[in-house]
């Protein structure tokens, strides 16, 4: 914006001939630029972002090096002790493991499921608008509600799921009272509904699918490609950028899993569904601020690694594509 305004007077000055006049700029203008009021407009946002996002980031970094007791009001410098303690802590290592298992299952399943659903929703059939709307509904379900719902349905003693198994003549399952099954149920719940469920992936894929010009697929079929061939040669390459985005996004969502756990198992039975973010929440709740902050920074480290991998992967793919097709933008 400011550059647009700035260009006006300067060109007129030039047109009038000679060097630009040594216009004296006032103090306000010198500090705030030529559009000082713009600062005023963005000030509230700056205050909010700096105060609620940037300051806490550094504050918690500081906290992670401290041993702080918020009740007794004592603070001592701990250096890397919190980090060391965490890496030695079986509970934290378990949390990391659960998070990796969850993410490892959740990301590919949600993306594949989303792709399948999107391909179905991309068909030209009657009432497709209704199907698309219905498919989007799970995205708006709150994850906490979802967690509570699943814990009711899959309660091993009073849940409907075991009642159904019983009707089918099958033996009852422990579900949420067994650590491993509980973690799998959380994956299922994550895929079923919530802001990063299968439906969410499907919506993103569907948007990309609809961007593929029909001429391309038609041309491919005229050239004799069958549906699998069309998918491989036309659809899949067009979906690649979206898939990379979804991989990154879903991985971040998987690592940040919290509300489902909070709403259903609360980390149980035992510690078998404690994931890293839940671990952080529990640490802070137990007033172990230093440990919680250190754990947060370890999670941030993990997320940075994921982001770098995705970025590196894209770079590599772009270079390869560039080398193959000559000049690419």
């Amino acid at each position, binding site marked *: 914006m400011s550059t647009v305004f700035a260009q006006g007077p300067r060109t007129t000055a030039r047109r009038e001939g000679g060097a630009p006049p040594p216009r004296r700029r006032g103090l306000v203008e010198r500090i705030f630029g030529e559009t000082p009021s713009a600062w005023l407009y963005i000030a509230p946002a700056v205050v909010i972002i700096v105060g609620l996002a940037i300051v806490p980031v550094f504050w918690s970094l500081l906290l992670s090096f401290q041993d702080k007791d*918020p*009740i*007794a009001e004592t603070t001592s410098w701990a250096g890397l002790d919190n980090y060391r303690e965490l890496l030695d802590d079986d509970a934290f290592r378990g949390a990391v493991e659960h998070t990796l298992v969850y993410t490892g299952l959740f990301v590919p399943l949600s993306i594949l499921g989303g792709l399948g659903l999107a391909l179905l929703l991309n068909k030209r059939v009657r009432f497709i608008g209704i199907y698309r709307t219905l498919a989007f509904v799970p995205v708006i379900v709150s994850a906490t509600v979802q967690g509570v719902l699943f814990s009711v349905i899959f309660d091993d003693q009073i849940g409907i799921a075991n009642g159904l198994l019983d009707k089918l003549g099958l033996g009852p399952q*422990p579900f949420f*009272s067994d650590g491993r099954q509980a973690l799998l149920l959380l994956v299922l719940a994550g895929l079923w509904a919530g802001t990063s469920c299968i439906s969410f992936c499907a919506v993103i894929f569907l948007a990309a699918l609809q961007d593929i010009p029909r001429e391309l697929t038609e041309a491919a079929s005229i050239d004799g490609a069958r549906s699998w061939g069309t998918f491989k040669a036309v659809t899949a390459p067009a979906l690649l950028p979206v898939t990379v985005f979804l991989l990154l996004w879903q991985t971040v969502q998987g690592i940040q899993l919290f509300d489902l756990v909070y709403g259903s198992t*609360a980390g149980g*039975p035992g510690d078998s569904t404690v994931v890293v973010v839940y671990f952080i929440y529990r640490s802070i*709740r137990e007033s172990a601020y230093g440990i919680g902050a250190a754990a947060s920074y370890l999670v941030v480290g993990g997320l940075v690694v994921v982001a770098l991998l995705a970025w590196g992967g894209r770079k590599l793919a772009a270079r390869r594509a560039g080398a193959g097709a000559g000049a690419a933008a």
Partner: protein
Amino acid sequence: MRTRKRARIALVALLTALVALVVAGCGSSGDDDDGGGGSGDGPVEITFWHGQNQTAEKALKSLVARFNESHPDIVVKAETGALSDSLYQKTTAALAGGKYPDIVYQFGPNVASLARSPKALDLTEAVRDPSWRWDEFYPAAQEATMVDGKVRAVPALIDSMAVVYNRRLFREAGVAEPRAGWTWDDYRATARQLTDSGKGQFGTGWPGVGDEDTVWRLWPMVWQLGGDVTAEDNTKAGFSGEPGLRAFTTINEMAVTDRSVYIDKTAGSEKMIGIFNSNRMAMIPTGPWQLPETIEAGIDYGVVPLPSFSDRPTTISGPDTWMLFDNGEARARAVTEFAKWLTLPEQDAEWDVGAGSLPLRTTTAAQPVWRRHSAEVEGLDVFVAALEDARVRPTIVAYPRLSEATGTGIVEVLLGSADPQAALDKAVEGADEALAGD
């Protein structure tokens, strides 16, 4: 161009610093804002986090209104704060943030931990004043407020554990109702008889989250068997060996072998109480605070003392407290006055009825409000009588961590994921660690 850029950077830096200052300021202003710190004019305003809902909240609100009317120089602002289960966390956060209420409801096991705060008032001197009539509080209630020989809280609620049972389910199954003097073997057999998985009916229930609600039910068993929560002056777990093992084994046999126990995996044990209140659980070990809900649900119930392992019918009392915090001298004085008034017999009786508490003071039991209530509510007398055989948990800082380790062990035997001996060994080890770290 360069200078302008630099000026902008300077400006952004300035803004950042300003915001940081504002935020830091918000974070640590303790007693310099609202509510009449102490400068004499106008009434002193104090904030009250009561943590209650439903009938208890209603009773409190009317009491607070009456206090505000009769004490024109003090204004009590009553807020829920958070429901009592999460008030400890909320209070900790508030203390860390520097803006905290003057009086807060706290579970007994948290008093020792919060008493470490330099802002927690020490009431040892204050309660010596005869107007407090401190000696009238039941010993169990007094004990829960004492940390290292000092009074750090005011009794807020007192209960005892007994078994509430569903008369209709006993009648339908043709099983004789339980009677005082029964044993845990009787309890186990009865629970098995009254379990009907086809109808979704359970003999009894046990919270399976592993929190304090899971744990406090264990202590009466341990005490009856001659063990204790801690031993050797709070330096070691007191439930290792025979007492712990027999208690763990009993729980394991009922839950895993007999499948007569509904294991509530949700925090707060609401589900378990819900099942009892819908005629699908025969017996539930619980406190008197559950009765209002059970009555409202129209359950035909009876109350019987806890079963025993020996001839010792020991039960547990889990007193809760009001904790007071220092927000300057005037507010501290006001809140101390309020806490005293709130627990005097006339007010206590009213609050006890609303909250489902037993009388905090011996003199409360003589109040007409309480007498009427006690005559009306079936089984309340059993809870009151059980107080005589009730013991309390130790008020030590390490208790919450000891409880966590013990809770993990109980959940393991409930779910059958470890055998009783292994689960007990791990629980004892965790408890020992918690006590050593103190």
